[in-house]
C-alpha cells in the first residue's frame, strides 16, 4: 500500500510536467487547429537557456524568470515569422512546419551544447517527507505547476486580454469584428505556450538530466494526455496529463518490464479513447453536410 501511494505521488509529479506541456499543446490547438510537434523541443531549448544563465552565475529563480521572458518573446516570434506564412495553407503543411522546427531546435541544441547529458540544478532539496510518501523535489514540481495553472486561470478568466484570446480562438471572425487583433492574440498564445513549456522543461531537467532529446518522451506523453482529456479542453489537458503520469508510473512498477512500458501505457490510453473518442472532457466536433 505504501509503495502504491508512493508510485501515485511520483506519478503525479511526472504528470504535472505532462499536464503543463499538454496545456501548451491545447492552447495552440484551440487557436489554430494545429498540433505543435515542436512544443517539446522549444521547451528543451528554453531549458538550455536557463542552464546557460545558471552556469553564468545567476541565482536559480532569476534564471528561471529570465528564461520565461525570453521563451515568451521567442514563442511570439516563431508564430509571427514561421507559422504565419502557412496560416492559410493546408493543415498538413503547418504540421510539417512544426516537425521541421522540432528537427531544427533539436539539431541546433546538439550543435551548440553537444549531445552530452548535463546535470541540471534543482531549486528544491531532494529528501523524503510525509513518511517517505513523496520527496520535497516532487512536491516542489507540483507546487510550481499549480501556481502556474492558477496564474493562467486568472489571466484567461479575469483579464481583458485573456478574454480576447479565448474569443479569438473560438471565433476569429467575430473577434475581428469586435476590434480584437486576432493575429496578435495568436502570437501571445504561442508566447504563453512557450513559457509554459519552458517551466515544464526546467522542472523536469533535474530528473531526466538535460540533453537535446530530453523532451521527446515528455512531448509524446503530453500529447497523449491532451487527447485523453480532450484536445479542445484546457481542464482536460491538465487532468489527462496527470492521469498519464500516474498510469505510466503504475504500469512501469506493477504490470510489465519497463521495455514495454510505453507500449502498454499507450494501449491503455487508446482503449479509453475507443470508448470516449473525443477524450474525457472534449466536445464532439459537429459536422454538417
Amino acid at each position, binding site marked *: 500500500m505504501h509503495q502504491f501511494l508512493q508510485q501515485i505521488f511520483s506519478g503525479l509529479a511526472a504528470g504535472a510536467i505532462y499536464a503543463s506541456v499538454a496545456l501548451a499543446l491545447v492552447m495552440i490547438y484551440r487557436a489554430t487547429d494545429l498540433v505543435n510537434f515542436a512544443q517539446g523541443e522549444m521547451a528543451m531549448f528554453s531549458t538550455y537557456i536557463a542552464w546557460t544563465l545558471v552556469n553564468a552565475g545567476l541565482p536559480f529563480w532569476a534564471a528561471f524568470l529570465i528564461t520565461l521572458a525570453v521563451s515568451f518573446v521567442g514563442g511570439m516570434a516563431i508564430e509571427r515569422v514561421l507559422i504565419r506564412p*502557412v496560416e492559410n495553407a493546408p493543415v498538413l503543411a503547418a504540421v510539417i512546419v512544426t516537425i521541421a522546427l522540432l528537427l*531544427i531546435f533539436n539539431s541546433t541544441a546538439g550543435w551548440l551544447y553537444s549531445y552530452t547529458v548535463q546535470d541540471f540544478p534543482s531549486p528544491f532539496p531532494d529528501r523524503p517527507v510525509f513518511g517517505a510518501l513523496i520527496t520535497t523535489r516532487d512536491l516542489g514540481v507540483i507546487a510550481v505547476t499549480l501556481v502556474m495553472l492558477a496564474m493562467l486561470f486568472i489571466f484567461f478568466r479575469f483579464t481583458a486580454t485573456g478574454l480576447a484570446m479565448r474569443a479569438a480562438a473560438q*471565433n476569429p*471572425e467575430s473577434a475581428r469584428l469586435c476590434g480584437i487583433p486576432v493575429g496578435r492574440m495568436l502570437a501571445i498564445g504561442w508566447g504563453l505556450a512557450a513559457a509554459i513549456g519552458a517551466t515544464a522543461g526546467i522542472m523536469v531537467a533535474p530528473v531526466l538530466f538535460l540533453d537535446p532529446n530530453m523532451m521527446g518522451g515528455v512531448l509524446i506523453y503530453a500529447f497523449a494526455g491532451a487527447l485523453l482529456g480532450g*484536445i479542445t479542453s484546457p481542464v482536460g489537458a491538465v487532468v489527462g496529463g496527470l492521469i498519464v503520469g500516474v498510469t505510466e508510473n503504475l504500469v512501469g512498477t506493477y504490470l510489465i518490464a519497463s521495455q514495454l512500458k*510505453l*507500449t502498454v501505457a499507450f494501449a491503455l*490510453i487508446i482503449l479509453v479513447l475507443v470508448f470516449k473518442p473525443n477524450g474525457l472532457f472534449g466536445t464532439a466536433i459537429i459536422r454538417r453536410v
Partner: protein
Amino acid sequence: MEKRHVIAPATGSPGGAGGAVFGSNSAQWISILALVVFAVALPFALSKYHVFELTMVMIYAIAVLGLNILTGYNGQISLGHGGFFAAGAYTAAILMHRYGVPYWATLPAAALICFVLGVLFGLPALRFEGPYLALVTLAMALATPQLLKYFDTWTGGQQGINLPKPVPPHWLEIDRDRWLYFVALMALLIAIRIAANILHGRTGRALIATRDQPIAAVAMGIPTARYKTIAFGTSTLFTGVAGALAAIVIGYVSPEGYSLFLSVSFLVGSAIGGIATIGGAIVGGLFIEFVPNLANDISDAAPWAIYGLAMLLFMYTMPRGAVGTVWPWIGKALMRMGPHKIE
C-alpha cells in the same frame, strides 16, 4: 470554430500527375514509354552505389504512395507507417532467414500480412480523426522498436537479422545491385498502376467523396467505413511491400532502423511531394533518400537543422507539395501551348 481542411481541397484532376500519366492518350503512352526506357537504361550509366540509392528512392516512393492513399485520398494523417514498413521488412527477413523462402516469394506474403494488419488496425483507428488518429498511429510507431526487441526469438532482438543475398537469374548477366534496381522498378510500376486504377475508379471517387463530404457520402449510400478500411489496408499493403523490398536490398533488419523518425520521414515525403498525387510519391522518395545526405554535406555539425530548413523551404514555396503546386501550372502552360486538348 472554423475547421481547416486537413489537406488541400482538390484542385483540377484528382490524380494530379498520375491522372495525366495514365490517361489513354497515345502521346502520353509515348512519353511513358520514353520514361520507362530511360529508367531501364539509367543503371548502366551509373556506379553501383548510385544504383543502390535510386533503388531506395523507388522503395521509399512505394511507401509514400501507400501513405498518399491514406492522407491524400482519405484525409487521414498517419505517423505510424514506419511500423508497417517494419512489418513488411520482418516478414521478408523471417521467411528468408528461418524458412529459406526465396526473396521474391516474400513480397506477396508481406503484402498479404500488411494488408491484414492494416485492416485490423484500421477498424478501431477509423473511429479517430485528425490529431486522435495521429496519436494512435504515433503510438504504433513508438511501439514498433519496443515490440521488435521484445519478441526476440523471432526478430533476433537488438542484433536483428542478416539476410542471404539475393542472386540475379544467371541468364541475365547483370550484377546484384542492378538486378535489385529492376526488381524495385517493376514493383514501383505495378504499384503506380494499381494506385491509379484504385484512385481513378469507383473506389477512388468513393474515397474522395468520403474525405470531402463524409456525411453526404453516407447519405448517398457509400459504405464509408468499408472504403476507409480498404484504403487503410491498401495503404499499409504498399508500405509493407516497400519494407520487404528494403530488407532484401539492404540485406539486414534491426529495430533501430524502424524508429519514429522513419514514419515521420514518410509523412514529410508525402507532404513535400504533394499528398493527393502519384507523381509526388517519387519526389517524396527522392527527398527521403537524398536530402539527409545533402544536409550532412552542407553541415555535419547540425545536419537535421539543414534538413528542417529544407522542409520549411518546400512548405513555404509549395504548400501543396511539389507536384500539387507545380503540376496545375504545367497543365495550364501545356493548354496554352498547343491546340491539342490535354484532358
